[in-house]
C-alpha cells in the first residue's frame, strides 16, 4: 500500500517525546481523537456562558447615564476585541513553537487559530463602528486604536494568504511563523494606543468610572462574555485543527484506519 509517505512520518522530536505520556498529544494522530472529545464540552460551555453573559448584559446591568442603551454594545465589543488580540498571541506562540521544535501539530494549531482570530478582529471593528456612530457621530476615524486594530486584521489576512500561497505545508508553516512572530509587535501597540496617543477611543473599559454597583454588574457581564468567546474560540479552533490534520495526513495509515472505523 502507499499510505506512508515521508511527509507523514513523525519527526525525530515527535518520536522522542512520544515516550512521555502527556507529550504524546503533540503528535497529530494522538491529538485528533482528543480534540474530537473536547469540542462538545467547550461548545456547551460557550453556550452557557453566552446565555449568562447576555442575561447580565441586557437585564441586570442598568442603563448608562451618558450613553443610554447604546453602551450595551460593550458586552460584545470588548470581549471580541480582547479575543482578536489574545488569539493572535496564541497563534504566534504556536507558530514559534513549531519553528523552534519542528513539531507538526504546532503549525497546524497556528493555522487553525488564524481564521477565528481574523473573524473576531472584524467583529471588534464592526461592533466598534456601530458603537462609534451614536456616541462619536462617526462610523470610523483614523485614530491609533482603530488603525492598529485594522492592521491586526491585515496581519491575519497576510498570514492566511502566505500559507495558502505555499504548497508544501511545512514550508508554509515556517513562512507563516516568521510573519506571525514579526506581527506580535502590533499587539502592545493596539493595547497601549489609548495611552500613548490622543485617541477618540475611550481608555480601558475596566476602569470606567460610574456608580460602583453599575461598574460591578457591567464588569461581570463583560467577563462572562469573555469566557463565552474563549470557549467558543477553543471549540472552533479544535474543529478546524481536526480538519487540517485530516487534510495533511490523508495519505497516512492512521487516517485510513480512522476512515475504515467510520464505516
Amino acid at each position, binding site marked *: *500500500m502507499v499510505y506512508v509517505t515521508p511527509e507523514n512520518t513523525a519527526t525525530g522530536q515527535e518520536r522522542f517525546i512520544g515516550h512521555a505520556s502527556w507529550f504524546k498529544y503533540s503528535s497529530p494522530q494522538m491529538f485528533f481523537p482528543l480534540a474530537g472529545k473536547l469540542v462538545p464540552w467547550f461548545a456547551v460551555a460557550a453556550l452557557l456562558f453566552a446565555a449568562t453573559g447576555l442575561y447580565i448584559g*441586557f*437585564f*441586570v446591568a*442598568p*442603563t448608562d447615564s451618558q450613553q*443610554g*442603551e*447604546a453602551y*450595551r*454594545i460593550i458586552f*460584545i*465589543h470588548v470581549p*471580541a476585541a480582547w479575543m482578536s488580540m489574545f488569539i493572535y498571541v496564541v497563534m504566534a506562540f504556536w507558530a514559534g513553537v513549531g519553528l523552534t521544535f519542528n513539531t507538526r501539530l504546532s503549525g497546524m494549531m497556528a493555522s487553525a487559530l488564524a*481564521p*477565528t482570530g481574523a*473573524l473576531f478582529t*472584524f*467583529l471588534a471593528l*464592526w*461592533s466598534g463602528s*456601530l*458603537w462609534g*456612530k*451614536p456616541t462619536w457621530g462617526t462610523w470610523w476615524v483614523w485614530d491609533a486604536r482603530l488603525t492598529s486594530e485594522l492592521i491586526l486584521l491585515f496581519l491575519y489576512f497576510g498570514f492566511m494568504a502566505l500559507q495558502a500561497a505555499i504548497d508544501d505545508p511545512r514550508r508554509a508553516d515556517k513562512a507563516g511563523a516568521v510573519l506571525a512572530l514579526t506581527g506580535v509587535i502590533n499587539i502592545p501597540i493596539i493595547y497601549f494606543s489609548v495611552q500613548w496617543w490622543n485617541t477618540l477611543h475611550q481608555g480601558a473599559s475596566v476602569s470606567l468610572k460610574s456608580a460602583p454597583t453599575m461598574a460591578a*454588574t457591567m464588569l*461581570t457581564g463583560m467577563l462572562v462574555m469573555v469566557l463565552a468567546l474563549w470557549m*467558543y474560540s477553543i471549540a*472552533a479552533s479544535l*474543529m*478546524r485543527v*481536526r*480538519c487540517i490534520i*485530516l*487534510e495533511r495526513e*490523508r495519505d497516512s495509515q492512521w*487516517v*485510513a484506519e480512522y*476512515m*475504515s472505523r*467510520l464505516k
Partner: protein
Amino acid sequence: MGGGIYEQIEMNWASWSDFFAMGGYALYVWGSYGVVFGLLALEIALLIQRKRSILQQLDRMRSAVHRSVR
C-alpha cells in the same frame, strides 16, 4: 446581584417592545449582536461542512484504492 435583579428588570425595560427598541439605539445594538452571532454560527456551519467534505473525499479515495487493488 441576588434579590435586586427583578427590580432592575423593571427598571431596565417596561415591555418587550421597549427592550427591542433599545432606547432608540436598536440599529446599533442589534446590528452588533446580530452580526456577531450570525458570523459565529456561520463559522461553525462552515467547519462542519469542511469536515464532511474532507471525509467524503477521503472515502472516494479509499474506494478508488480498493477497486484498483481488486
